[in-house]
């Protein structure tokens, strides 16, 4: 099994805070996920996800606040719409849509954060290295 390379976009208010909580709680998870902190998950553009795949990422994780809890009220709904569309687009590009995942992790869910990362890392490892011909 490969050691997958994963880019993760965390929103500042929920998921990044949840990741910090995993740290202060000294929970452990695989080190394959490298974080990029954004203000809101809705800041993540399709272009960013595609650039990640193009530059060698095997998986992309986007973490936002739970529905109804978004710091910016509606940002995570925008993200959900975009990710749904983007997954369809990935299929057209011959990229398994499972390589892109959107998860809601709150600032209190340190444990859940680690579970998400573990599970996603395993899934991407199973899917193997992403070979992108032209993007």
């Amino acid at each position, binding site marked *: 099994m490969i050691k997958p*390379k994963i*880019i993760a976009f965390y929103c500042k208010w929920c998921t*990044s*805070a949840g*990741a*910090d909580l*995993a*740290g*202060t709680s*000294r*929970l*452990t*998870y695989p*080190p394959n996920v*490298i*974080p*990029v*902190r*954004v*203000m*809101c998950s*809705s*800041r*993540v*553009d*399709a*272009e*960013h996800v595609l*650039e*990640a795949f193009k*530059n*060698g*990422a095997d998986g992309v994780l986007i973490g936002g606040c739970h529905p*109804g809890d978004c*710091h*910016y*009220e*509606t*940002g995570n709904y*925008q993200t959900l719409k*975009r990710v749904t569309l983007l997954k369809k687009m990935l299929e057209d590009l011959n990229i398994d849509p499972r390589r892109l995942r959107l998860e809601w992790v709150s600032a209190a869910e340190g444990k859940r954060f*680690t579970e998400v990362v573990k599970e996603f890392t395993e899934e991407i490892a199973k899917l193997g290295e992403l070979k992108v011909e032209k993007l």
Partner: protein
Amino acid sequence: MKRIGVFVCHCGINIAGTVDIKRVVEAVKNFPGVVYVEDYKYMCSDPGQNLIREKIKSEKLDGVVIAACSPTLHEKTFRNTVSQAGINPYNCEIANIREQCSWVHTNMEEATEKAIRIVKSIVAKTLLDESLVPIKSPVVKRALVVGGGIAGIQAALNIANSGYEVVLVEKEPSIGGRMAQFSETFPTLDCAQCILTPKMVDVASNENIKLLTYSEVVDVSGSVGNFKVKIKKKAKSVDYEKCTGCGICVEKCPVKVPNEFDRGMSERKAIYTQFPQAVPNKPVIDRENCTYFQKGKCRLCERVCPFGAIDFEQEDEVIEEEVGAIVLATGYELYDVSNMGEYGGGELEDVIDGLTFERLLSSSGPTSGEVRRPSDGKVPKTVVFVKCVGSRDPEHHFPYCSKVCCMYTTKHAMLYKHRVPDGKAYIFYMDVRTAGKGYEEFYQRAQEEDGVIYLRGKVSKIYKSDGKLIVDGFDTLTGRKVQVEADMVVLAMAIRPSSGAEKLFNLLKVSTDANGFLTEAHPKLRPVESLTAGIFLVGCAQGPKDIPDSVSQANAAASMISVMFSQDYLIHEPIITGVNEDLCSGCGICVAVCPYDARKINREKGTVEVNEILCEACGACAAACPSGAAQQKNLTDRQIISMIKAILEE
């Protein structure tokens, strides 16, 4: 290229225990733009901060990356440190290699590898960081309060008592709102008028409050700190400078119309004051019903007025006020009984709503507080109260709980029993919700001391037979059908936002929920702010609530406004999403995704404009923009992509 210095913190063994600091330092040295790297045991300590300041000067750094703990902890600290050494604080970034690296991994090799990638991505970001200055905009230290019920009164008094001017706008001739119509208040049974009217008088006598009754907001422009509001003062047809409120005109006026304040159960004149304790206690002419205005003859009030205060020529006047903040306290009304055909609502005269019953209980009401039914003035010996009428009924009416009905219906039944001790009071209920201080005790008292009978179940039908109101219901506790022969029925109708408020909300572009109540900026953390900065929401305009909750909200909004007015400028984080006008086609996609109404299309220029004070920097617009014209400051697409590349580079 920027000259970047990277400072790697050991955090004792918190980072150094799992991350090989030496290897990080060696790797970082080769990153583009990095001219200096140093590690230290505790970077946040005084010597650590001194080290950073010294090296900024000696190495002529113009960008700094601190590889340490989460930015939540020390981003402010280090930005402060670098600005003391002359660097714009927005050129300092934190690489989180503790919470999101050293603390969550055990294998040093892997943790070190990850830490290097994290630092590399933050260096890539810092290379493209711009120097930014916080956005400042002046504040007009005056507030507008719309709605003169208890919530609006409380907010206005608090803001005024903090030393700021308030414009209080009320559409009715008097302030007081719904609370002025109440009899006694749960759970203490204080008389509503006794606790409300002194506050109304305080409003009138407060030098900082400009009271505009019989007035409506007709236009609003501008934004937080600087709103321009147009207010229509409807013609009162009475010169308040001259009028003393003696009331002779009211006495002599020959026209009688149903009195809205008493829910149509008494009559008022065409020239009238709303109720005896009205503030201001001066009359207005209701032109729709005035003989002179309708037929051109009469002018009796003018003849009897000893002060020449009647002014038939008075016209509506629109005035403009500048304010820095707006409080919406537009209140509620009851869902009309005529919506309840199965209960005879609107058909059967003795099927009334809760507010009408309040007037029957009120000592200043049409019956001077005696419970007499509207149809024939007889004292009803059996009264049925029905709760959740229109509320909690998503299929037919509204899905939400109106919150106050459980308590006021209990109060109604209790007060009825006090007035008519040999009478019977039945309450049909779905649930009894008594969350609130002293509320459960009050409910117990109604059952145990006053003998109010609670029946758990819905009423299916109310109709008239042999002069009695037949209430068909079902008792779900015994599993039996119940039929009560009543003399009067009181329906606890759903609470609805005031009619007319919707127009105002649209004008202000504040959002409402599916039921028409105002939406707060955050349901838990920003409960009295709207999504539009500078606009606050209090009382039932935001959702059904009781008097203590309305007062608390009003206090909260007033305190937030006082904080805002205590500064001469509004200071705003500069990491907003701007517009590159050369790239913007004015498509408006960003306008649609902005939750704060911070963006709008300038038709003349054909591009989008940003109100920087309103932008909260979520970046949703930047991702939505198809041309790359919308870019978030210091988190541009170029920066994000550059971070991604830095992370993935072999």
